[in-house]
């Protein structure tokens, strides 16, 4: 960590666990859950949010002294919307199939509460470099949860990871399927994402008693 001072490094590491945007700050759940049925979509979503948050935080932080506070919400929305349009167009150009699966959820990054939340709470009060680190950190914290949920759902639901069959073939009965294991197709249904996040919160809070609500 020669490049980063201790305080700056904390900006990145804090949101990964103890101040995680999804499980602690309860932000950005909207788009997080619907697309986690497989790992690939979760990863792409994580990268998209990383880009939007990193760049958006810097832009807002650079403009923080010239934005009139009364219309700051609209200014923030316009900045995010422009960045999201870039992400959407890039996905449509280079990964059309994937952008079809993600459908409206890329667009919903605009109203992702993490982004607005970090703009309001951090970028409007701090310089561009620290805002950039904060954006990256929070986006990583968001991506970590997406990837964990995505791994569980794809592995248990379809027996694959990133589309590769890791548990053997359910039809030919190879791998673990030969000893009677079955895919739990229920994991692919939307409500299971909520239950998995609930379980992650449970694990996290029982490891760190400070986070328990009364």
């Amino acid at each position, binding site marked *: 960590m020669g490049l980063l001072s201790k305080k700056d490094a904390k900006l990145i590491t804090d949101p990964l666990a103890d101040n995680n945007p999804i499980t602690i700050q*309860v932000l950005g759940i909207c788009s997080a859950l619907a697309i986690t049925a497989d790992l690939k979509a979760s990863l792409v979503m994580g990268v998209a949010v990383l880009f939007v948050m990193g760049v958006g935080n810097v832009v807002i932080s650079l403009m923080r002294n010239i934005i009139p506070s009364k219309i700051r*919400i609209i200014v923030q*929305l316009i900045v995010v*919307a422009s960045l999201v349009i870039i992400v959407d167009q890039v996905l449509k150009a280079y990964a059309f199939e994937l952008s079809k699966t993600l459908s409206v959820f890329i667009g*919903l990054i*605009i*109203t992702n509460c993490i982004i*607005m939340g970090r703009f309001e709470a951090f970028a409007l009060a701090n310089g561009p470099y620290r805002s950039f680190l904060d954006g990256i950190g929070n986006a990583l914290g968001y991506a970590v949860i997406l990837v964990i949920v995505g791994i569980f759902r794809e592995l248990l639901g379809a027996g694959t990871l990133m589309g590769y069959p890791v548990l053997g073939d359910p039809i030919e009965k190879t791998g673990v399927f030969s000893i009677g294991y*079955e895919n739990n*197709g229920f994991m692919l249904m939307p409500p299971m994402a909520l239950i998995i996040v609930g379980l992650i919160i449970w694990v996290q809070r029982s490891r760190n008693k400070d986070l328990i609500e009364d």
Partner: protein
Amino acid sequence: MIEHLELFFKAVFIDNMVFAVFLGMCSYLAVSKKVATAVGLGAAVIFVLAITVPLNWLLDQYLLQPGALSWLGSEYADYDLGFLSFIMFIATIATMVQLVEIVVEKFSPSLYNSLGIFLPLIAVNCAILGGSLFMQSREIETLGLAVNYGISSGIGWFLAILAIAAIREKIRYSNVPAPLRGLGITFIITGLMGIGFLSFGGMLTGGDEEEKPASEPTVKVEQIKSEDNAKKLADNTKNVE
């Protein structure tokens, strides 16, 4: 008439904003501690959706779709401004929310007092933008249907937040494991309610929804995720057999 009823039931139960596509989860979790506030926010969401979805439908029809500009003259007929839809939709929503707030404050102070504090929150509620984006991707045909879609998806969201608020008021008296208290148990309850709402899936088709996509080659690519998942599930069960 029949397509209005069908759209209504589809938007309220089958494609429920919260349980099927998880839209508006942030405010759903944050404002569901008391039934009274939940009702206020729910009403505000219905109200704003009923205004913004038809407005964005008009924008989509006459400005954004490929060929939508043909009313300006034939030389504009092959413009496709679709890539602007995010920014147009969110701008409409943000300005409408602001406008609605001012109008309501002026003409109905009592309504303003009950909705007031929630209105600014709503501009960044994913359910509102999601309503407009789903309206666009599902190609809703007429303005009447767009109004219907806005109102009925709002009602679906209202039902969801009302139910979770009632449950959370009751659950305070239960003995929930300490680390799960608050947020964790709310997630799990919402998941269980979502599983309950899955059973509405066959309501309009008599349960043969899974068969349809396979036999129809013209089926749209932008099918919603849950239908896709239901198909995967069906394939899985077939494999087991």
